[in-house]
């Protein structure tokens, strides 16, 4: 198991390296990075100063070295708009994003797991068809449009929920549902296919041959096995939710990292944009690593692998 974890750790490091190269590469080769790194409307003197400061006249490997050195120190630059350290800014927005993602995840699992199980148990039946339509709609309706419709219905017509902002539990409901909607469909699909696969397995057949009640066959023998891939996906999706919430957060003016990214674009605050992408990618690489390790803990087949 230790070797397994070390190997995964190695993959993660390679991924992080390539991630930084990717970001670095795109900033340098697509035009003049100095233009991106100075505030909008800066003078030629400012541009030259920035070139000096970041060593943009140096060869690329040297530039990359100093880029990495800055990142390693946690120095993602200064925000032009907020005039503060970008990392601090990012971290101050993270809790709101995590709250939103967690509630969205609860929605998506509460909707996705039962519908997926029912669809698999009643495969090709009425429930299954309803589930298929739901999944298709979920994957086809952009989350921010769902959010806009909810505002129209619950805030404008019914006046039940606040249309934007944060602070109370009521504020989180609509953005979380809009964000969780897409993932509910994804979780439903995976639960269904994973359940179907498990229900066709020999060990479920044996559980039935033992004379177990159907509830136990499905609830114990099938569900626990079917849950492994779903939980894996959910773990990755939780982090993905933090990083794809840009549009939903913009719609609801939710003060998370997605909204920060939007502000970064709107105010042409490039250091903020770059940091958000870098940190988002790093988060996903890390969670992939964690999920792999957790996998090893849950699944005895990997746990005892030497």
């Amino acid at each position, binding site marked *: 198991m230790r070797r397994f974890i070390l190997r995964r750790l190695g993959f993660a490091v390679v991924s992080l390296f390539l991630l930084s190269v990717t970001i670095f590469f795109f900033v340098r080769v697509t035009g003049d990075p100095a233009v991106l790194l100075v505030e909008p409307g800066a003078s030629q003197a400012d541009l030259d100063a920035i070139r000096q400061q970041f060593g943009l006249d140096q060869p690329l490997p040297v530039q990359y070295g100093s880029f990495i050195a800055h990142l390693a120190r946690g120095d993602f630059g200064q925000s032009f708009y907020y005039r503060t350290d970008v990392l601090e800014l990012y971290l101050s927005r993270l809790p709101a994003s995590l709250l939103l993602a967690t509630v969205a995840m609860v929605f998506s699992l509460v909707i996705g797991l039962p519908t997926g199980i029912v669809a698999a148990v009643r*495969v*090709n039946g009425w429930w299954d068809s309803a589930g298929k339509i739901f999944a298709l709609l979920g994957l086809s309706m952009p989350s921010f449009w769902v959010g806009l419709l909810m505002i129209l219905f619950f805030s404008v017509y019914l006046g039940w929920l606040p249309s934007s902002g944060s602070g109370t539990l009521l504020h989180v409901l609509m953005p979380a549902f809009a964000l969780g909607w897409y993932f509910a469909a994804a979780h439903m699909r995976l639960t269904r296919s994973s359940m179907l696969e498990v229900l066709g*397995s*020999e*060990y479920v*057949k*044996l*559980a*039935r*041959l*033992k*004379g*177990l*009640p159907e509830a*136990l066959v499905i609830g114990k*023998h099938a569900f*626990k*096995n079917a849950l492994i891939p779903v939980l894996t996906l959910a773990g990755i999706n939780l982090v993905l939710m933090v990083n794809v919430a840009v549009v939903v957060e913009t719609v609801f003016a939710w003060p998370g990292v997605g909204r920060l990214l939007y502000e970064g674009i709107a105010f042409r605050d490039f250091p903020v944009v770059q940091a958000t992408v870098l940190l988002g990618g790093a988060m996903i690489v890390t969670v992939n690593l964690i999920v792999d390790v957790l996998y090893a803990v849950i*699944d*005895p*087949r990997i746990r*005892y692998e030497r």
Partner: protein
Amino acid sequence: MSLLLDVRGLSTHYVSARGTRVTRAVDQVSFALEEGETLGIVGESGSGKTTLALSLLRLLPPAARIVAGEVRFEGDDLLRKPAAEMRRIRGKRIAMILQDPMASLNPLFTIGDQVAEPIRIHEGAGRRGAWVRARELLRAVRISAPELRVREYPHQMSGGMRQRIVGAIAISCEPRLLIADEPTTSLDVTIQAQYLNLLRDLQRAHHLAMIFITHNLGIVAKMCDRVAVMYAGRMVEGGPIRKIFNAPAHPYTKALLESIPRLGDGRARLTAIDGQPPDPANPPAGCAFHPRCPRVMDHCRQEAPPELVVGESQTARCWLAADRR
């Protein structure tokens, strides 16, 4: 000896999703089984052996339907039993060992949990009591150090051990009938022999009746009292093992027996059966075996033969048998 199982005219069909194609996987099969007796069911893959076994337990895949017949077990027709009662028979009165021991155990639960499960369900035993029994059962199927093994997971066991554990699960509630569906196909030859010996010992110790599904006639000869040969969903020949092996009435049985290689018989050619088994969804008219039959007659192409009595407790579905009589 008393009659334990009496199957009459059992037919199971697979219906395609749109109901347009019907496959007669099991077609008018009848046989009987005494207590403590072993019946071997042989046939090529796709001949309906497994569907027959699952029909007896009413655990068919959703596309399959039992369309006719009765399955009398200890006097009652299983096909008429309510689902809850049927569930109490599975694992308790009738147990089954599946083809693939590697896949039959749930990877996420311990061996002890899985062996103890039927005992807890059917006999209402507590966890502790059931686990004590589980250890005894593991010992009975010759697993060493059962007190350690109960806490381990299936992936830590070899194929032979897993299959013995599946055997332990099967006998855990002392069933009257054990159905073994090609239980040794995925095992090494040496382990096969051990496992067959184990099954026979268990059978004697518990006075079990057994249905042994296989395509290996050597195993049938070793294990069974009687044998039934299936072809394209039908039971083409059935009878006591000596009679079938010495005087097979059906050309298919004859061909099967000739395809067994024999030691010390250097000159005899190993004969394979010409042609392919029929498409079960679209069987040939008349006798399903006629396109491959070396002794095919005009009659065979037009009308499927009924079950004909050939000798004492031997039957065959073949027009040749009608002539012989």
